[in-house]
């Protein structure tokens, strides 16, 4: 695996550093603690502290001004009877399942495509990443104009191919609005997931493919028996990122496109929560929505990690 010159380079360059490591102590435990400490300080100050503050708030009734009043688990119990919240939860699940499927499926396909392209690599890979870099304000504006019932690009395209009967106000129609928003979310993040898949593909030694080709394995078999098994850690990363993205980080895209409308058709938990907090000044109840979602998503991810841990794959 390693060439002799590489080892000798390491030997000479690493030697002067040994004494530093000795001074720090030989045990991994101490070194690890020192390495994690800066991250732990930031994490404690700007995550754990507000996190527990918010958790405390979720057991209170608070309008943001008068002193918070402790009401036990009443906020959480209220969630089970709140039609808007339950509808939003359902929408969030539809959102996550569809966007995860398409971001991973298309993302991997796109990465495989990019891996095959031999010309203008920098330009093409850069282009794929463009939607990721565009701010939500611009992306929302663009897509609301594409979906526009009067001058929108989508309806014009349907006219062109003779499917005028399908024309509609894509974001204004409760039957299509949620799917229209999901399309934008997939469009926005596809390049991000594809680039991660691409980075993963680059780490697969090409000898494996050459050997398989010599053995006469078809392209499908190479994908199924070499690429996918070796990509399990990357698929896992993309799934976790997709889960957290589509469950807890879809506020901007929904807000810019529909504000949760029409009639809550695109309401997801986060938009419902922000409305509850800032429009209705029910800070405690809004916090309870957020923490309920967190527990739910956390449970899902823990289940995923557990299931993957039982397989032979290392993540």
């Amino acid at each position: 695996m390693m060439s002799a010159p590489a080892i000798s380079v390491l030997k000479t360059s690493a030697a002067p550093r040994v004494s530093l490591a000795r001074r720090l102590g030989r045990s991994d435990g101490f070194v690890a603690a020192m390495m994690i400490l800066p991250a732990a300080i930031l994490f404690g100050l700007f995550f754990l502290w507000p996190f527990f503050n918010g958790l405390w708030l979720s057991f209170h009734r608070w309008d943001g001004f008068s002193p918070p009043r402790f009401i036990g688990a009443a906020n959480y119990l209220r969630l089970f009877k709140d039609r808007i919240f339950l509808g939003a939860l359902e929408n969030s699940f539809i959102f996550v399942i569809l966007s995860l499927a398409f971001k991973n499926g298309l993302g991997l396909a796109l990465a495989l495509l990019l891996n095959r392209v031999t010309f203008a690599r920098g330009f093409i890979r850069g282009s794929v990443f463009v939607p990721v870099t565009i701010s939500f304000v611009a992306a929302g504006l663009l897509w609301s104009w594409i979906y526009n019932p009067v001058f929108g690009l989508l309806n014009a395209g349907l006219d062109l191919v003779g499917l005028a009967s399908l024309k509609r106000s894509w974001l204004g129609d409760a039957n299509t609005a949620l799917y229209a928003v999901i399309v934008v979310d997939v469009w926005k993040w596809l390049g991000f997931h594809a680039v991660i898949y691409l980075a993963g593909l680059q780490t697969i030694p090409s000898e494996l493919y050459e050997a398989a080709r010599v053995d006469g394995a078809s392209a499908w078999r190479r994908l199924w028996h070499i690429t996918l098994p070796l990509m399990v850690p990357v698929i896992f990363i993309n799934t976790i990122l997709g889960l957290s993205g589509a469950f807890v980080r879809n506020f901007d895209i929904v807000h810019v496109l529909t504000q949760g409308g029409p009639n809550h058709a695109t309401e997801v938990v986060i938009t419902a929560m922000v409305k509850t907090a800032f429009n209705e000044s029910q800070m405690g109840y809004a916090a309870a929505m957020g923490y309920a979602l967190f527990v739910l998503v956390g449970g899902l991810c823990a289940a995923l990690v557990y299931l993957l841990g039982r397989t032979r794959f290392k993540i």
Partner: protein
Amino acid sequence: MATSSVHGAPPAAPASFAQSLERLGIYAALVIVLFQTLYPLIWVLFGSLKTKPELINNVWGPPSSLVFENYVQAWQMADMGNRIFNSVTVTVLSLAILIVVVTPCAYALARLRFPGRGVITGLVVGSMLVPPQVLAIPLFMVARDLGIINSTVGISFIYAAAIMPLSIFIMRSFFLSLPFDLEDAARVDGAGRVAILVRIMLPLARPGMALIIIFGFIEVWNDFFLAFLLLRQPEVQTIPLGLVNFFQQYDSLWNLYFAALMITTLPVIALFVLMQRQFIAGLTAGAVKA
């Protein structure tokens, strides 16, 4: 068609019909991909160069004349100079803090054996699942207690903390994917953990680092939510706040708004173009094979 399909293939193997068909498929897919990613940007560029009446009459096409004046006006009206300075300061500081904090932590989580490693990794992943909006109000109170409202340095630490879990997660998996032989060889030679991290692992993990820098840059550069919460005075505000103010004040000046969007989007794309070599060059693959 035949010549173009042979081009790029190994010279020894003549292109069969199946191969040219495959190549044709690749080109077709590529055209579709490039259209859907690039047209939006081109659309904003077109819009930014049109006059206001033309933008309304000709929504999707190229501009009939190039009104560069839009950029000058947008720059002045959105107070871009000052805001770009603030955005650059905040972004650079946040990323510097991020790299210093994330790299050792991700390395420790990926490569060192110590009690509590699983718990900490779980905490990192778990914190990515907390909706940022949940933390908004408590975070404001914490920032007030620390006295860092309206401080570009203060908000940089908060940004670093906000993108830290994802970055640790990405860096950790890059460190995990590096071959253990390299490290073992260095250990046999007597190198300590810090030396191994700095001399051996860091250069190999550059693709991962490029990834978190790009992702962090996009998050911080485009962020509206935290900036709105914590930067209340105009002289410390960043570009996204300026954009939204601008949009609210001058409701229908779409062409100027597009110009402002172009000014803010270009640095991100430029950075990506500059850095992509890092994680696409396949440094890792090279190291494994060498």
